[in-house]
């Protein structure tokens, strides 16, 4: 039986505390009645009520959702189609050597370099054509670009685990490619697509750097709003907002884990 030294356990528990104490402080102070300083002034839900009357916060929340939902929709479609294309044609080694690195590029490019490159590219296109003013569309483009890689990864994994037997059976029964794709592959693929989409959604919610660079004056998202507010001073409203963002992210991640577990179980059964 493996057992660890008490000192190792102690260090680990301390590390967990280091990871959690700041977050718990944020939650705790979001219920703090005293506005100034760090003293405890009693319990209140006042700041949460305030949030729902703050036009700027609501707009930022709205923008965050629009950005996450639309970029997830686009990247899920493009990423799924890409994964299917990669897996269902007999690509040779040379072709693979060309497009595998391209697909992995968004995963390995540091966020800030990607963001800066996009801003400059948008700037150049804008000066030539007048299109691509920084704002929601440019943010969506930025998010889709890094999401595609992750969706493709999730869908390819699922395609591999499905194997070729199902489509072979469909073709043996004289199904056309379109028919077998619609009625056999797509339903089997759905859990993988869903997992990829949820991963893309969380990544979009989580992103700050790419949004921060590619945002226009009217397309502030919640992370950008929090970042800007902290520079003016930390307030209980920001704690309340951050608490809500954290709770929402945790919910999405729990859902993601559930669907992954569900996938594994259905795979084990088949």
């Amino acid at each position: 039986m493996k057992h660890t030294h008490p000192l190792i356990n102690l260090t680990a528990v301390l590390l967990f505390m280091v990871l959690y104490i700041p977050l718990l402080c944020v939650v705790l102070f979001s219920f703090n009645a005293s506005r100034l300083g760090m003293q405890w002034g009693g319990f209140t839900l006042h700041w949460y009520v305030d949030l729902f009357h703050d036009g700027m916060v609501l707009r930022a929340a709205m923008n965050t959702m629009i950005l996450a939902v639309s970029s997830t929709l686009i990247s899920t479609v493009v990423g799924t189609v890409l994964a299917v294309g990669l897996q269902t044609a007999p690509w040779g080694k040379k072709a693979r050597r060309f497009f595998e690195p391209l697909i992995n590029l968004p995963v390995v490019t540091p966020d800030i370099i990607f963001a800066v490159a996009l801003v400059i590219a948008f700037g150049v296109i804008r000066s030539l054509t007048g299109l691509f003013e920084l704002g929601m569309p440019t943010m969506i483009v930025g998010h889709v670009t890094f999401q595609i890689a992750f969706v493709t990864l999730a869908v390819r994994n699922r395609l591999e685990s499905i194997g070729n037997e199902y489509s072979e059976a469909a073709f043996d029964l004289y199904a056309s490619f379109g028919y077998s794709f619609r009625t056999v592959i797509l339903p089997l693929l759905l859990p993988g697509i869903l997992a990829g989409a949820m991963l893309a959604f969380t990544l979009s919610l989580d992103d700050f750097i790419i949004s921060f660079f590619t945002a226009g004056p009217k397309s502030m998202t919640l992370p950008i709003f929090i970042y800007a507010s902290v520079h003016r001073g930390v307030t209980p409203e920001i704690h309340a907002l951050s608490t809500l963002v954290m709770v929402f992210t945790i919910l999405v991640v729990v859902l993601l884990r559930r669907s992954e577990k569900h996938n594994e179980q259905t795979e084990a059964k088949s």
Partner: protein
Amino acid sequence: MTENEIVYHGELVKPRTLYRRGLTFILPGLLWIAFFLALPCLSLGVVSFAQRNDYGGIDWTFTFDNMKRLIGFDLFGWSADNLVILGRSVMVAAISTFLCIALSYPLAFFLASRPARNKGLWMALLLVPFWTNLVIRTYAWLIVLAPQFPPARFAAYFEMVDPGTALYPSMIAVYIGMVASFLPFVALPLYTAVEKLDWSLVEASFDLRAGFWRTFRYAVWPQTKSAVALGITLTLVPAMGMFVVPDMLGGAKYMLIGNLIQEQFGTSRDWPFGAALSLALMVITLATLLFFNSKARANKEVRS
């Protein structure tokens, strides 16, 4: 010309149809990445040789000014500022990565030794900070390091800081923020490796009276170093370009290259210099990764 049909995964089809279909499927995705990632990255290289015009736009005259500025030469002669920032970025990223590795070992062993029924819970506990927004995770430290709280009081008690001052902005705060941000990036791959660890080697080592360090060096390290290598890549690359943590916890005195880049796209509005800085960041990151990789390879050669 008629092409013979082949049977591919049960489908009777001409190879050409197969390729054409595959291409229509992968082209949208590939073109998207090429157009919105590969091309912009290439344009960084071009723009870094251009010049800033008076309106903050790009003036397309070829110049090496940005490179000269990068290594410190400007209108007022030479200054070490930019090089200091570059050096500091490498140092902060390297030290943070090292701290993350050192701290991930106890975490990984702790997680791996939990009984199966609540392992999921501990994993979830490690994943929640990992998925929490970086901005929130970072600014949360502003509360913990505030003057009224134990860490600052403790430091004041030992006269490390004046009583009543916060522990930020400071280099220590930057390291705390960095390690807290990147710890899960190393801990998760390391946990996977520790979970698969061959414990009989560890037991054999202890049975042969090897001490803690020898056991680690010869029984644990060889089995986990590929996970550490992955952790280094996952941490070092984002740590090099990090600007949220130094911005919030470090202030102007502890600027890193990420902050310098951000400044070129914010207040200074000097895109060509920003592009040059990004290029430098990319080169330094790649060089550091290659350095680690070559070391790992050298290690391997020595052992075999």
